[in-house]
């Protein structure tokens, strides 16, 4: 099986930027589920920092800003990587505007809240879609990757928001909020679990399963349930830890398990059929 070194800069970019957008999404959700304005302000700042730092890591990966400008000039072609950058850029713009209007009561903050949710979905999905679209790498050509990236990023964003809420006080924050995070943990478990069993993983299958669906999924679900029982910073921190471990592992394993090699195309045929 051919393997390629893990592109850690891209792994970190995809986790940071998408999870930052995930934080922004939960600020948006809080517009409807009773989050505090002070919590939201800090959450938006954290989200913007995560997106900017993540973007910076992507720039480091491509080497220089002129290459980024070349990529920006090529956005019209709709290349998967271009879509990823576009989603990050637009979500960053939404986040900056949101920063200034979030204190207002009224439709503007709610509209930006909805835009934040859409932006987070776009960033989370496209960071995985840029792998899925690589048709020459059969084990990437599965919707499990973009959905795994999306659910995992929203999950981490949710826990970061819950941590801020625990610190500021969760009065008025609907329990539904926590159950959304728990639901994302269930989805993350399912998608990453299916991916682990369906992909032609080698002897590192158990490491993948331990870190990704187990710690990242089930561990996060446990943290969410504990938070639902007692809105403590400890449980939110546990959730952040599990979501980070799972998120990093899932994104890193995407690079480790690339394809079975040019001489073994048939090895992945069953995998492709599984999702078709």
């Amino acid at each position, binding site marked *: 099986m051919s393997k*390629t070194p893990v592109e850690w800069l891209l792994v970190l970019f995809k986790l940071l930027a998408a999870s930052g957008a995930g934080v922004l999404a939960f600020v948006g959700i809080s517009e409807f589920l009773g989050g505090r304005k002070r919590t939201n302000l800090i959450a938006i700042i954290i989200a913007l920092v995560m997106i900017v730092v993540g973007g910076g890591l992507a720039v480091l990966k491509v080497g220089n800003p002129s290459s980024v400008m070349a990529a920006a000039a090529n956005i019209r072609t709709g290349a998967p990587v271009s879509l990823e950058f576009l989603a990050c850029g637009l979500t960053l713009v939404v986040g900056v505007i949101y920063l200034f209007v979030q204190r207002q009561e009224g439709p503007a903050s709610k509209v930006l809240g909805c835009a934040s949710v859409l932006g987070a979905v776009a960033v989370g999905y496209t960071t995985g879609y840029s792998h899925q679209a690589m048709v020459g790498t059969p084990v990437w050509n599965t919707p499990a990757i973009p959905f795994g990236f999306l659910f995992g990023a929203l999950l981490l964003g949710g826990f970061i928001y819950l941590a801020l809420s625990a610190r500021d006080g969760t009065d008025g924050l609907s329990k539904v909020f926590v159950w959304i995070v728990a639901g994302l943990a269930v989805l993350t478990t399912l998608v990453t679990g299916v991916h682990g069993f369906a992909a032609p993983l080698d002897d590192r299958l158990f490491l993948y399963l331990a870190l990704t669906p187990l710690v990242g999924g089930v561990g996060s679900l446990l943290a969410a349930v504990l938070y639902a029982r007692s809105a403590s910073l400890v449980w939110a921190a546990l959730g952040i830890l599990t979501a980070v471990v799972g998120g990093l592992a899932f994104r890193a394993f995407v690079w480790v398990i690339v394809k079975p090699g040019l001489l073994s195309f048939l090895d992945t045929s069953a995998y*492709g059929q599984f999702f078709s």
Partner: protein
Amino acid sequence: MARTLVIDLDRCSGCDSCVVACKFENGVTLGNYWNTVVPVVPVGTHPDIDMYWLPLQCQQCVNSPCIAACPTGASYRDQENGVVLIDKDICQGCKTCLPACPYSSPEGNVKPSVRWYNEEANVVEKCTLCNHLTATSDGVENIEDTTDPAHAVPPCVHNCSCKARHYGDLDDPASDASQVIAQAEKDGRGVHLVEAEGATPVARYILSADIAAWRGLGV
């Protein structure tokens, strides 16, 4: 336009002349390759054994997943003659095209691969069908003047010691490539594509069933 190579595997001896010619013409540095010759390993039991050599280079895919994946537009198709190329001035060495290409190793540094990552120049390289020589050629070599741009062929074709390689536009019935395919079909020899998931290759390979059974890149 469907410019490509047509390679007669009945004639290929696996001598690597094409690889050497390519490296000379294009200044391909040590350790990098724009084309390779894959030994499709022997199968069967003595004395009924068959194998063949498979020269592999960019397959000039119709759908070109490398172009679709390239974030900077460095991978493109020449509008004049349809050849898939890489603009090295724009390529940023991100290697996104490597996992996109069904015929390349993920890092572009392990055979067999049709794309190679030139670490020193930080660009990805691949076969251009020597477009700098052949862009306006009709694909029928003028043996009296091999530099004649109207009839130039890639050096891998000119230098093929077994005359196994042919170049031309498959949409032009008069091209050498089209003529060779037509003759092979008339003779009942197999004309094959190297199939791969996500690929729509244009390059053709001729292999007679009595020489070996077609197995693409191998089992």
